[in-house]
């Protein structure tokens, strides 16, 4: 199977403090991968690195021909300005940016895709609503519709299911399954390990350092989970104040 993402001794961080430390892994094309780990484990940081928002401070990321701008990325807290008078329809249509850019028109086929995406997330009838009037779950649905329109080969989701009701959760999970069936590569940061076991064939378990990577069943074992989550003790979440240069071999 061809790789979609290759991490080579990747270290990502902030002001020289590593948040993802010495990660080496290869994500195959079409993978449906859950990224798990405790708070502060570097899960969001890894997604930011993949989409190019954060430059590695060590090692490298190979995206195998996918430019950072071609990646569909849903951040943990989307920065949508809810005070701006924009309709749900227009917000979703933003997903067409790569195709139509600054000047391109929205063709009839595009409009059909926008309507199909709105229907898929259950927001038919919300087209003219101003985004500021949406509930949190409805906004997340709209953002999923926008992701669908981006038509990306690589999709990154940072805790996409936080604070959603059961119906919305099921709907959005259905969309992720559809992406997987279409052969797209999907990486999702998740905390619900039951959901990960049920849906995601591959899992990367992080606790700043990679703990385990591979088929979900073998990754989410009592022993690895104990190493990641600290076996009842808190892991070393805080940065060491007097940290010195890392001397680990590449």
């Amino acid at each position: 199977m061809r790789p979609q993402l290759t991490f080579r001794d990747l270290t990502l961080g902030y002001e020289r403090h590593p948040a993802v430390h010495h990660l080496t892994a290869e994500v195959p094309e079409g993978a449906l991968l859950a990224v798990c780990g405790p708070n502060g484990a570097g899960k969001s940081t890894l997604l930011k690195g993949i989409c190019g928002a954060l430059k590695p401070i060590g090692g490298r990321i190979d995206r195998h021909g996918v430019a950072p701008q071609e990646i569909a990325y849903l951040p943990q807290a989307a920065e949508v300005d809810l005070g701006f008078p924009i309709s749900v329809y227009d917000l979703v249509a933003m997903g067409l940016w790569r195709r139509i850019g600054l000047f391109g028109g929205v063709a009839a086929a595009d409009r059909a895709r926008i309507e199909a995406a709105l229907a898929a997330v259950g927001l038919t009838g919300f087209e003219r609503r101003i985004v500021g009037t949406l509930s949190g779950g409805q906004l997340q649905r709209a953002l999923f519709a926008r992701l669908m329109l981006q038509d990306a080969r690589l999709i990154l989701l940072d805790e996409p299911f936080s604070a959603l009701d059961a119906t919305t959760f099921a709907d959005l999970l259905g969309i992720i399954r559809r992406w997987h069936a279409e052969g797209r590569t999907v990486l999702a940061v998740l905390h619900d390990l039951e959901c990960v076991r049920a849906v995601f064939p591959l899992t990367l378990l992080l606790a700043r350092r990679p703990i385990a990577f591979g088929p979900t069943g073998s990754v989410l074992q009592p022993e690895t989970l104990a190493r990641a989550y600290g076996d009842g003790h808190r892991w070393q979440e805080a940065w060491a104040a007097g940290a010195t240069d890392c001397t680990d071999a590449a």
Partner: protein
Amino acid sequence: MSPYDLLVAPFAEFEFMRRALVGVLALALGAGPLGIFLMLRRMSLTGDAMGHAILPGAAIGFLFAGLNLYAMTLGGLIAGLLVAVGAGVVARATRMKEDAALAAFYLVSLALGVLIVSVRGSNVDLLHVLFGTVLGLDDDTLVLIAGITTITLLAFAFLWRALVVECVDPSFLASVSRSGGVSHIAFLALVVLNLVGAFHALGTLRAVGLVMLPAATARFFARDLTVLVALATLVAMASGALGLLVSYHLGAPAGPSIILVAGLAYAAAVVAGPVGGLLSRRAPRRHLEA
């Protein structure tokens, strides 16, 4: 006094009134969209800062060439762009937020301006830079203002989509394209350009009034972006025309009259505006069916 005497005669009889009217109407055309985007991008005070930033450039132009339209325009443009681009670049290249960067840049620029003005000694002509001469617009100034408005409207047509997307979700735009930074800098350049155009009529410190007050007024009447821009433009035009009439009939200075009329419109909107105005909040209508 007949409505004709009140509203039309001043413009029909006096050429300087007609020139002033053309000038403020042209300024209002650019001010409408500019003010709405400044407000929606939470940059309402940025215009004010830029107005101060322009001062040293205009003063240097004045120092070299006297009361020369092009020297002062060029000077103001260079100073404004230096501040706008400098602050924009610092905000995007470092961890400093743009408001703080802009404050730093414009304060330095303003101090420089005051220094230059005082070295030259007190000079009545320089009041022109500070307060404008809307009743003394010559052909060259009118052409300059109309040219700036034309550029502004064309630029908005080109950048509209990027400006909207960058307002709504800047990190999304940054993730799919690099046009966010370019459109932001271009937008700041438009702010500078319009303030430089407006200072000949209204002065550097008041130019921003015709931009922000109509935008703030429109916010109380509409939710839709296109309607907001159209309304702000109309309010700016009406404030310009009414302000000139007020100044004519009362013998008051024209520049402040224009801004005060816009201010009255804003005050009325705050009280009676149907979208979130004071009265609409005090007397809520019965709720709808679920």
